[in-house]
Structure formats: C-alpha cells, structure tokens
C-alpha cells in the first residue's frame, strides 16, 4: 500500500512537473484566478507580458495588475475578463489593448476566458492571453495597402479613359490630315 502510494505520488509529481514545463514554454500567457480574483498561478509568458517578477504576481488581484482597454477606453473592473469569467460560465474570446507599465508599449491582446469548477465551490478561472500586436499591425498594413491599391486602380482607370479619348481624337485628326493631303494632291494635279 505504501509502495503504491509512493508510486502514485511520484507519477503525479512527474505529470505536474511536465505540465509546468510545457505551460512555461509556450508563447501564450496563461493565468489561473481564484473566486476572489487573485492570481493562483501564471506561466512565464504572463510574467514577461506584465514585466514583473513571478512572486510579485502570485496572490495579487488580477484586475489591478492587468488593466485593459477596449478601443482606447479603460475597461471597468466589473467588465474585466477575469470578472466576466468568474460571473459567467461561458467560454469567451475578446480583443483588448494593454499598456505595459515599464516599456510604454501598447499590446493588442486576444483574451480567452474559461471557468471551471472542481467540486463544491472550488471555482477557478483560466485566462489565456495571446499577443496579437504583430498580427494586428500586419492586418492594418494590409488594409492600408489595399486602400492604396484601390486608389491607384481608380487613377489608372481614369487615365485609361483619358488616353482612350485622346487616341480616338488622334485617329480623327489622322483621318482629317489624310483627307486634306488627298485634297491637296488633287488640287496640285488640276493646277498642272
């Protein structure tokens, strides 16, 4: 029995250790929150995003440490994804902006919230935060390029219309010149 218990503990330690290593090596920031909104655990990507030492984050109120904006406007505490996920059992994905205190940099974030309940009243929330700043920038650049391309096409179409009009006029003028030359030739013939 003791041997089985030791084996079970060892297996669980290895499984948990692997989880920690795996979650610590991914780029997405992950944070667990208790029903009070306190950080129970977070991975290395979350430490990096907030630019704070890991131990300063544990036990801290997430909404205070991780203020978010939407369309440039601060998200009120009750609408913070941590609070929303604690109140509702719905899985959601929302876009936010986050201004890093140290680097003075604005990040575009995609935040996924999920609530889970483990036994009686043992509720927790998992937030997965993906930095989509680069993707957003690329999308904006692509939109700008599209706009520019559209403008250029319109200008080309206009120029094409002008050129076609001119070409038509040149044909007319050439015809006129040809007629005049012909007439001039005839007059020259009769004058001899």
């Amino acid at each position, binding site marked *: 029995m003791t041997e089985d218990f030791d084996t079970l*503990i060892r297996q669980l330690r*290895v499984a*948990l*250790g692997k989880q*920690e290593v795996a979650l610590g090596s991914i780029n997405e920031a992950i944070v667990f929150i208790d029903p009070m909104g*306190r950080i129970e655990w977070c991975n290395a990507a979350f430490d990096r995003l907030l630019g704070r030492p890991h131990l300063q984050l544990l036990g801290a109120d997430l909404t205070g440490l991780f203020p978010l904006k939407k369309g440039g406007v601060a998200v009120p505490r009750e609408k913070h994804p941590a609070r929303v996920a604690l109140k509702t059992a719905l899985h959601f994905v929302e876009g936010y902006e986050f201004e890093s205190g140290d680097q003075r940099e604005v990040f575009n974030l995609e935040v996924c919230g999920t609530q889970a309940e483990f036994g009686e009243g043992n509720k927790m929330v998992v937030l997965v935060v993906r930095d989509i700043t680069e993707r957003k920038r690329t999308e904006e650049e692509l939109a700008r390029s599209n706009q520019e391309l559209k403008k250029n096409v319109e200008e080309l179409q206009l120029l094409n219309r002008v050129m076609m009009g001119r070409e038509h006029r040149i044909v007319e003028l050439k015809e006129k010149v040809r007629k005049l030359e012909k007439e001039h030739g005839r007059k020259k013939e009769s004058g001899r």
Partner: protein
Amino acid sequence: MTTIDEMRRETAVPVVLANHQGFITYVNRPFKEVFGWQEEEIIGKPLTHLIPQYLHDSHQLGFSRFVTTGRPTLLNQVLRLKAVTKAGREFDAEHFIRAEQQQGRWVFGATIRPVGQSD
C-alpha cells in the same frame, strides 16, 4: 550558505524540513511557536498546510517541476512569501529554501522569518 544540517540546528528562526514528496519531516521549536502546530500534528502532513489556499497550485506545480527536472527557480535566495498558521492567519515571511540530495532523493529545508502581520 545555510545547509539543511545547519537548519536542523537552528534555534532562533522557524525551520521546516520536507521530503521529496512534499511531506513535512521536521519542525523546530520557533516553528511551533509561530505556526501554532504541535510536532505530532504537523509531521507527515503536506507542506500546503503552511501555504495559503490560493497559492497551493503554484506550490504544487513548482515543486513538481523541480523534483522532476532538478532545475530550481526559487532556491537559495531570500523570498518574501505568505505563510499561514494553524489558526488560518496569513502573514508575510522571508523564506530561504534549500534543496539537497540525500541518498538519491531530494530533501528540502526552509527558514521562515516572519516580517509583519498581514490582513
């Protein structure tokens, strides 16, 4: 650097030792005074008895990672962390945690110096 043997001889600061599974194997007299646990009550109990509930996941994941990989992140440095007494009172304390291999297994020791009362 304080060794686990030195921690075992410590008489002024609370000390707790634990085995590779995270079970408490030794506490000293100052520990009993600060935490309110008697030796017979706390020996053999998981270390989580000394850690606030909201930090249990973090402790279990970090402890498991260390015993699995042997790569420390919090050892051999002074850390300001919360601890909890038998009565459930949380307090801030300076922790110094050390791990040593003894007969092929990790043994953990910590000095826990209270630095004030928290709410």
